[in-house]
């Protein structure tokens, strides 16, 4: 198990190298660079060249890339052009907010899709099933930014119940979390529905009913727990996606998270900030992926015995040797 974790972490290195190379090249291909934002009609070409040399932008992209990577392997993710702050520090300032939003959206998503999926599976093929599925797909079909704007209009402008943006404590997180969360419900709801359909038809449910368990126990314990394996996987991958894809929502609600920071950095061609933040983001997403795999073990005993078998056997062996 430890070996497996270690292997997975080593695998992260080529991924990060690839991601950073891609970002560097993409940023280079984009029109203009950071210096173009600084110059105006009064700047002389000499001054402009000086500025370029200051930020190292006079060198070709590939050289800058190797410079940057050299720094990265020493633990230095570079310095933001714009703020002059280290990329790592800027990222750490904002990641808390993004994590908060990710957790809140995942809670919203799970709270909607799990009951809806179970309900849908229990009433499969009926009108109730179709209505539940309609709402789940509706969540997926509505664009995030539009739903965000509509929620702002309704709850912030018309009703005045909730703030329209910024970070003013718990109340500010409700609307962005609803926006991101509902966007993810369709997939999680359909996963819940299909894996519940599998377990609801399983022979062991008949055994559970024959024992004299109440129908609610049969469904919520005997059908749900084995169905949790794929549900958990999808829920966690959506949690990971919240780190990667909430930029739009963060912008709409001016939520001071990483997504908004990266979008702003791209606009200003702040290459070190973009690249460094994305590398950190990538690491977080991969670590969540690893945690997902490890959580499998907790839910599915069949996986646990596979991992445990070697160490368990050794323990048993030494025990019998001691007895002898």
């Amino acid at each position, binding site marked *: 198990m430890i070996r497996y974790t270690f292997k997975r972490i080593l695998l992260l290195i080529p991924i990060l190298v690839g991601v950073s190379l891609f970002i560097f090249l993409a940023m280079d291909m984009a029109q203009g660079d950071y210096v173009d934002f600084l110059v105006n009609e009064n700047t002389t070409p000499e001054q402009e060249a000086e500025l370029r040399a200051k930020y190292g932008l006079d060198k070709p992209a590939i050289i800058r890339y190797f410079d940057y990577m050299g720094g990265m392997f020493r633990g230095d993710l570079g310095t933001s052009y714009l703020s002059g702050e280290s990329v790592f520090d800027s990222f750490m300032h904002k990641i808390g907010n993004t994590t908060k939003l990710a957790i809140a959206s995942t809670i919203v998503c799970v709270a909607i899709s799990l009951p809806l999926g179970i309900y849908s599976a229990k009433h499969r093929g009926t009108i109730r099933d179709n209505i539940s599925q309609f709402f789940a797909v509706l969540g997926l079909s509505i664009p995030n930014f539009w739903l965000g704007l509509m929620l702002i209009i309704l709850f912030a402008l018309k009703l005045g119940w909730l703030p329209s943006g910024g970070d003013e404590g718990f109340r500010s997180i409700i609307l962005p979390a609803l926006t991101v969360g509902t966007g993810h419900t369709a997939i999680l709801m359909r996963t819940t529905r299909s894996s519940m359909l599998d377990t609801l038809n*399983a022979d062991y449910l008949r055994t559970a009913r024959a024992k*004299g368990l109440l129908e609610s126990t049969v469904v919520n314990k005997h059908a749900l727990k*084995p169905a949790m394996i794929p549900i958990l996987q999808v829920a966690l991958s959506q949690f990971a996606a919240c780190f990667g894809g909430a930029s739009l929502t963060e912008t709409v609600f001016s939520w001071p998270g990483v997504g908004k920071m990266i979008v702003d950095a791209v606009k200003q061609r702040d290459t070190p900030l973009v690249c460094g933040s994305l590398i950190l983001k990538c690491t977080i997403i991969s670590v969540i992926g690893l945690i997902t795999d490890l959580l499998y073990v907790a839910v599915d005993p069949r996986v646990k015995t596979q991992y445990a078998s070697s160490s368990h056997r050794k323990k048993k062996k030494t025990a019998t040797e001691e007895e002898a």
Partner: protein
Amino acid sequence: MNQESLLEIEHLTVRFEVDGDVIRAVNDVSLSVSEGRTLGLVGESGAGKTTTALAALHLIQQPPGIIEEQSRIRVCGKDILNMNQRELSRTRGADISMIFQDPMTSLNPVFTVADQIAESIYAHVDCTKKEAYERALNMLEIVGIPRDRASEYPHQFSGGMKQRVVIAIALACNPKVLIADEPTTALDVTIQAQVIDLMKTLKQKYRTGMILITHDLGIVADICDDVAVMYAGRIIEQGTLREVFNHTLHPYTEGLFNSLPDIKNRKAKLIPIPGLMPDPSNLPEGCAFAPRCRYATEECRKTLPVLQPFEGTHQTACLAYSRPGEDFVLERNRAK
């Protein structure tokens, strides 16, 4: 009706409606099991044995299954088909329980075997979870599984051990009626013998009424008191073990015996029953066995036979016995 009857099934008729097809799985089946008696329910695959058993616990999925109105099932005097959720859960597992056919899929893969047994005890017996678990460990020992394997999961068990866990679940609360759906099919011969012994003990010690569903006429001869033979969803012969085995009346039952090896005459050729059982979604108008029956006449293909009483409790549904001016005797009985 008999006062001691623990399970009474009357006129049970079950059909399944799947994609516009109507599958008549069980047609007008009546049987009863009283205290301490074991009924062997025999017949080939698809004859409706398992459906009858599931109906007795009201476990038929509706839809697609439909239990027709005239059906009555009483478990310990209570009408199980009209029970609400709570009454059902009180009856299942405590008054009546079932050993399922396929041990590989009958256990939940994500709970330990002891937990799955304890759950049943906890649901019916007034005790703490810990006591229920302790009793589950005893149950495991009764079915021959050592205590230290109690916290293992079903996938760590062999097929035979899983079957024994399924049996332990069914027996956990000493049910008054036990339905065993081919409990020995998945087991090797030595374990089979143990399971049969276990069932005999139950019968003697707790006076459990049992229905044993099986293909194996040998096991029927070993532990059953009564026998009912099913064909295409109907009971076509019913009686005590002696009546059915020694004075077979129905040509189908005769066919079943003829397809068994004879221990006294090992050179005798087995005679299989020709043809296949009719498709239950398209049953013939007359006797369902007529197309395969060597005694069948034109009338058999047109008229549906009903169960007719013979000597004692013996009953059979065969038109040959009511043909005017003919004293019909099966070939199997002629030599005697």
